[in-house]
Every structure is written in structure tokens, then in C-alpha cells.
């Protein structure tokens, strides 16, 4: 049987697709949207975990906190220290934090956390730049010798001549110095190595290589300084890292002789301070222990947030102080619903309604897909138990559903309570699953159970869970979320797909099996 108006269908789909493509092209060409900006970036949460105890008098711990710059953006900094007072001061370019307090007989816990959005930076150095005769005072200060950076030592001068870094352009000198410092044998030594010792031994860990680099650069007439920080990687660690910066044409340019980075700073480097400093100093007579705890998470890129300004839902949610999670849930729902339509009308997988799997997936975005499945199974078990108990009473429909809701609520709370008693913290999160969605789930399952029987209801349950997991996988894709936020016209494509599927008369995949006898597909 022919469709009534195939051309109307084609025109509608075409108009929607062209409209979406036109809007996207306009944004990219005229408004400077970049498709690359939809890719999420990695944000790290770093916690200083410092513990001290065993002291009867005043206690002070001094350290450095990071600042935002071209390479890193610091945000959401918070101090959850107990028993000590935090004060902050700028010392030159460094942000110095001091935790102090009197008498901590039971010890003190310093917990200081912040989020870092790091970027890789690299510098193009001017090839023919000569070493200038004079520097501004702020830079010239970084030419002087220090206790462990022996700029004037004869061995440093001799080495400078030997490697030919005492003449030529700034870039050429830095290249030779970098090559020498990088050529030192690596050595996993935790203590401090001064520049001369590193040179004499021909081996060193990061701080010795960096001091040798700085000593040679200063001897060559180029201001240079140590930089201290962390290499960001998820987990807990005690190891910090040191690299250097050299003053080139008015910029502090980073180099890491340990890991072979020349005039560039990789993304995962977190800068904490500059200068030959100790990361922690504390009053004597305390047991001091420290570690850095790092978590990584994907977040939308700041470029996307800054440039995706037409139909700026992002800004709207920021102004209304609504969470990003809600925005992405709202915008992803139509995508999830399309997926459900595909599963129902093309695959032939039965589900509880069209919206429910997508709603469940959206709700599971907060708790994780596993807890979503668990919450649904709990609800289903509660409904089955109540139905078994109520069936003899032959109650009316609406009161029955109200009883079901009470059972669902009790089941969730009981589970959380038992989980808490048993110390399964993760399981208590099923209580956080939106009750409205679970209530619809309970009603759908009950209706299916009464109208079609346990077998069909079980099939619909399995289908719902499978489609929910598929929806969750697609809807929780951050790249897709940012794409829809920046280019909401993608939803026009979703509409176009639904228009097409709405007039699609093809057989569902499951029907190839159902009618296999008629199709002759069976062997």
C-alpha cells in the first residue's frame, strides 16, 4: 500500500536537514564557532592532604598554592582544614599559604583542594635574537648565583665554553644547555642535588638537571629560574616535579630538561611556585606527612562555553544558577527518545513507553548506569510483591497504584538503610534516583503485568533496561552534549529522523524472526 504523500514527507525531512545544516554552517563561517571546541577537556581536582601530629606548641606549615595563568586555570578552591588557620600572602610571583595554630595534641589534618584546567603551551622563539646587554630589574634578579645554583663556579664556565653555549643567539645557547642538562643520566634520588654536583656526577633527578640548566643559562647571560609543581595524574602521590623558565624576549619560557620539553609546557604540568624553594616547610618537632590526591574528569572546554553564544542556553543556566547536569539532561532527552524509537520501531524491542528508557537514562546520569538498573529492579520487585499480595483483594485501579508507590518508596528507603548498616556506601545512592521516574516505571510495569502477563512484562522490562543502557551510553557522551548545546539545531536532525521513522513501513528486526516461516528464512 503506497504512502499517501511521499513527497510531503521528503520535503519535510529535506527542509529540516537543510535548516540544521544552514544554521551550523552560518555559525561556523560567520560567528566563528569551531567544531573542535565541542571536544571536552580534562579537568583535575587536586587535594593537598597534609597530616601532622606529636607536638605540644605552636604549629606552622607553609606551602605554595597555584595561580591561574596562560597555562592553567585554577577554580573552585576550598580549604577543609580542621584545627588550623589558613593565611595567604603573595611573595613575588608566588602565592604562599600558611596554616598555623596553637597546640594540636590530637594532630591536625590539612585538606586543601582546587580544580585545574591545564593547557599545553609552546613558544616560538625568535631565531636570531642576541643576548641583550641589559635586562629590566625584575628579570636581572634571576641572573645572580644562589647557594645551589653556582653560576660563577669555574666548572660551569668551562662547561659553557665546552658545549659552545657562551656565544651565538639566545635560542642556540638555550638549545645547547637544554641538550646537556637532558643528557644527564636519570636518577630516582629524592633529595636535593645542586648544579655542580649534578654536573660532576653526570646523573641527577629532575631538580639537579633543572639547577644545572639554570646555572648554565645564567652564566650565559640569560635570566632563568626553577619552577616547582606537579605532574597531574589520577591517584595519590608524594612526588613533585621541577623544571625551569628562561627569560626570552620579555616572556618566561618553560623548559623541562628531565622530560625533554623545549620551550613548551605539556598539558599535565601544574605550576605551583617559581624559584629555588621547598614545597613544604613546617615547625620542627612534628610528624609531618603529605600526599597529593588527584582526580580527573572530562568537562566542556572553556572555548566552547565562551564562543557558543547564539541561543546561549549555557549562559542562561549560569545566570539562573542551574547546574550544567540539568542542561545536558534536558537537551539530551530528545536524542534519547530517538534511540528508543529506533529500538521499538526498527529493532522491535518492547519497552515501558517511549519516554521512560530515556528518562531512566537521564536520571542515571547522576548516579551511574549500574544504580539505575538496580533502582529499576528494586521497583519491579516491589511491584511484583505488592501485586502478589493484593491480587486477592481485587482493588480498584487507582488505589492499587497508590499502594504501589508506597511500596516503591519503602523499598528504596529500606535498601538504603540496609546498605548503610552494611557499610555499602555506594548502594545508599539508589535513594537519590528520581522518584517520579521510578513511579512511572512502577505503573508501567504493573499495567504490563496485569494486561499482558508476567512473560510479556518481563520482556518489556528486559527491553527497557537494555534500551536504557544504550540511551545512557549515548546521552552521557560529553562531546555530544556540548555539540547540542552549541548547535541546538542538531535537534532538528533528530526531528527529521523521527519524521522519516514515523512513515517507515519496514519490518522490525524481531518480525523477521516472528514471520520466518513466511519469509522462508528458516533452514
Amino acid at each position, binding site marked *: *500500500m503506497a*504512502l*499517501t504523500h511521499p513527497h510531503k514527507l521528503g520535503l519535510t525531512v529535506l527542509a529540516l536537514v537543510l535548516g540544521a545544516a544552514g544554521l551550523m554552517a552560518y555559525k561556523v563561517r560567520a560567528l566563528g564557532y569551531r567544531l573542535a571546541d565541542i571536544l571536552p577537556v580534562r579537568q583535575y581536582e587536586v587535594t593537598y592532604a597534609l597530616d601532622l601530629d606529636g607536638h605540644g606548641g605552636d604549629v606552622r606549615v607553609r606551602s605554595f598554592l597555584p595561580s591561574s595563568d596562560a597555562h592553567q586555570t585554577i577554580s573552585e578552591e576550598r580549604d577543609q582544614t580542621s584545627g588550623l588557620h589558613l593565611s595567604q600572602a603573595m611573595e613575588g610571583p608566588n602565592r604562599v599559604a600558611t596554616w598555623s595554630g596553637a597546640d594540636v595534641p590530637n594532630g591536625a589534618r590539612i585538606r586543601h583542594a582546587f580544580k585545574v584546567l591545564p593547557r599545553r603551551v609552546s613558544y616560538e622563539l625568535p631565531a636570531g635574537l642576541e643576548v641583550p646587554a641589559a635586562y629590566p630589574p625584575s628579570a636581572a634578579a634571576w641572573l645572580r648565583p644562589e647557594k645551589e645554583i653556582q653560576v660563577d663556579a669555574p666548572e660551569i664556565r668551562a662547561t659553557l665554553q665546552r658545549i659552545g653555549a657562551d656565544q651565538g643567539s639566545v635560542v642556540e645557547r638555550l638549545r645547547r644547555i637544554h641538550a646537556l642538562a637532558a643528557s644527564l643520566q636519570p636518577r630516582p634520588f629524592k633529595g636535593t642535588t645542586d648544579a655542580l654536583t649534578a654536573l660532576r656526577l653526570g646523573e641527577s633527578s629532575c631538580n639537579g638537571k633543572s639547577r644545572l640548566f639554570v646555572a648554565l643559562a645564567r652564566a650565559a647571560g640569560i635570566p632563568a629560574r626553577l619552577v616547582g609543581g606537579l605532574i597531574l595524574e589520577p591517584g595519590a602521590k608524594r612526588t613533585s616535579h621541577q623544571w625551569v623558565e628562561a627569560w626570552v624576549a620579555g616572556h618566561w619560557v618553560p623548559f623541562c630538561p628531565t622530560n625533554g620539553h623545549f620551550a613548551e609546557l605539556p598539558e599535565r604540568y601544574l605550576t605551583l611556585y617559581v624559584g629555588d624553594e621547598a614545597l613544604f616547610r613546617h615547625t620542627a618537632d612534628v610528624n609531618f606527612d603529605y600526599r597529593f590526591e588527584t582526580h580527573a574528569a572530562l568537562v566542556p572546554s572553556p572555548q566552547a562555553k565562551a564562543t557558543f553564544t547564539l541561543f546561549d542556553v549555557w549562559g542562561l543556566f549560569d545566570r539562573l544558577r542551574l547546574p550544567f547536569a540539568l542542561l545536558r539532561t534536558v537537551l539530551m532527552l530528545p536524542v534519547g527518545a530517538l534511540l528508543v524509537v529506533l529500538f521499538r*520501531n526498527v529493532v*522491535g524491542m518492547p519497552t515501558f513507553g517511549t519516554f521512560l528508557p530515556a528518562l531512566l537514562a537521564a536520571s542515571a546520569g547522576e548516579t551511574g548506569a549500574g544504580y539505575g538498573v538496580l533502582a529499576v529492579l528494586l521497583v519491579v520487585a516491589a511491584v511484583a510483591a505488592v501485586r502478589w499480595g493484593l491480587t486477592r483483594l*481485587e*482493588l*480498584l*485501579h*487507582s488505589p492499587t497504584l497508590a499502594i504501589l508507590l508506597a511500596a516503591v518508596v519503602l523499598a528504596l528507603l529500606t535498601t538504603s538503610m540496609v546498605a548503610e548498616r552494611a557499610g555499602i556506601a555506594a548502594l545508599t545512592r539508589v535513594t537519590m534516583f528520581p522518584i517520579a521516574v521510578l513511579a512511572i516505571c512502577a505503573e508501567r510495569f504493573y*499495567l504490563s503485568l*496485569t*494486561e*499482558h*502477563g508476567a512473560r510479556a512484562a518481563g520482556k518489556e522490562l528486559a527491553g527497557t533496561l537494555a534500551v536504557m543502557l544504550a540511551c545512557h551510553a549515548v546521552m552521557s557522551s560529553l562531546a555530544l552534549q556540548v555539540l547540542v548545546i552549541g548547535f541546538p539545531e542538531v535537534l532538528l536532525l533528530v526531528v527529521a529522523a523521527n519524521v522519516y521513522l514515523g*512513515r*517507515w*513501513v*519496514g*519490518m*522490525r528486526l524481531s*518480525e*523477521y524472526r*516472528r*514471520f520466518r*516461516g*513466511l*519469509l*522462508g*528464512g528458516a533452514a
Partner: protein
Amino acid sequence: MSALSRAVARVRGVLARRAAVYGINRRNLALVYPNNDRRHYPLADDKLLAKERFQAAGVPAPETLAVCEGLYAVPGVVEALRGRSQFVVKPANGAGGGGILVVGAWDAEAGCWRKAGGEPLSPRTLGRHLADVVFGVHSNQLEDRAFVERRVEPHPLFAGLWGDGLCDLRVVTLRTSPVMAMIRVPTAESGGRANLHQGGLGIAVDLATGRTFRALHRGRAVERHPESGAPLLGLELPAWPAVLDVARRAAAAVPLGYLGVDVVVDREARPLVLEINARPGLEIQNVNGRGLGPALAAATDGRAA
């Protein structure tokens, strides 16, 4: 022939034959939506509304003995039925056979009826059942109507297929032309329900001759009843032209173009229409061993001729 080319040939065969078979998407878009206006669905879903139309059009249907519109009517209906035998209580909007109560003979001495299995049914219990139906217990609605029908005694041929109740004939019609037909037979396995997915038996009937030519049980073609062993094929159905005629007239009595008309044949070989369905299922294709496509084409051609 290599395994690959055999597979290719098989896929080609499947793709060629699928044009004849209707899936749910195609049924909805090509048959249900264009022919059945949604606002007329109540005529099919509400058995009492359908019966009113049948009566107006002179389509034979089981006699309605009483209608229970509300709770107030329950005692009157029970009193009116006192002393009567052989009737069935049904919810107007019931689904899947829920809420149907089959009542046998009146036992004057005991002051109660006997159910199909012989157990007693007091007027009080009957009243409560009517009240439940009116309250929508069996309809997933806030309220419903109950009605009482004369119990149809099936023709011996149908009684031979299933003794404990009724098995009906499903005739699918497109704009009043019969397209395909089958008998749906409950089994003990299906719990007395004629649902093919629950182990019921489907028997295909040739439209032209009224002869059964194929039977399907749990997806497999069978020749005999899986429980009684009664032969199922080559049976000549009684009053076949009359069956087709009432199916046509029932379809013409409602403004719905694509229907499943459920017909029973009583002991006097009179066809009676039980109910109509505006979204008839597709399993009839498997029972008949052929797709709806050619059957629909044949039915509409026949009408044009």
C-alpha cells in the same frame, strides 16, 4: 553451491518475500491509520456500543439480557436474573477476557446458580462481581459498564475443538471485504484463553470454501489437536457463506475500515458477532502461512470486480 552463495540466495529470498508480509509498522501506517479514525475506536473497544450498532444494522449478536450502568442497577439486575440459566457477564471495556463470568443452570432448591465447573454461585457473589465490573476492576478504568448476554451454545463442530467454552472465528476485513480468516481454539495449556502466544491453537480457514487447511500451535504446523488428538484439517465449517456475510455486515455497521470481526456459530448454525477489534493482530499471517499483502490485494480486487 558455496555456503556464502547459499546465504546470499537465502537473504535474497527473504527480501523478495517480505513485500507480502505485514509488520506492525506497515499495518499501522497502511491499514489502521488510513482506515480507522481514532475517534471511532470506542465503537470497537466498548462491546456495548458495538452491539448497539449491530442491533441497529440488523447484525445478529448474542442477545443482551441486562445492562448494569452503575452500582444502583446491580440489585435489580441480580433479581431479574434469578431463575434464569445459561448467561455470561462481561465488562463492556474488558481486555484479554478479564472479568468474564460464565454462568450455567439455576438451582431453584439451593437458590443459586452453578458455574461451568459445577461450583455454586450465589446471587450475593454475582452481585459483587457486577459491582467490581462497574467499578472498573477489570478494565483499568475508573468505571465501566457490565452487561449480561445469553450464553451461546456452540455448533458441534466448534464444541468438538474445545468443549469447555467458545472458540471463535476471526475474520479480518478491509472496507467490509473479508481478507483472511482463522479459528482460535483455547487449550488446557493456554488456560482456556484463545491467545495464540499463550499456547492457543490457530486454524486457518480458506475464505472461498470455508474449509480449514492449516493449523499452528506454538509456531509449529500441526494436523491434530495437541491435547485431544482431534483432526484439524479439511473440516468444512457450517454456514460459511453466512459467517462471511455477518462479518461483512458487522464491518459495515461501524465507520471503521480495517477490522478483526469475531464470530461464533451457535448450535442451530447461526453465526453471531461477538465483538470487533480495530487493531487486529498479525499472527493470522503465520496461521494462514501467507502474508496479508496478496490477500489484501485479492480482497480489494474482488470488490472492484
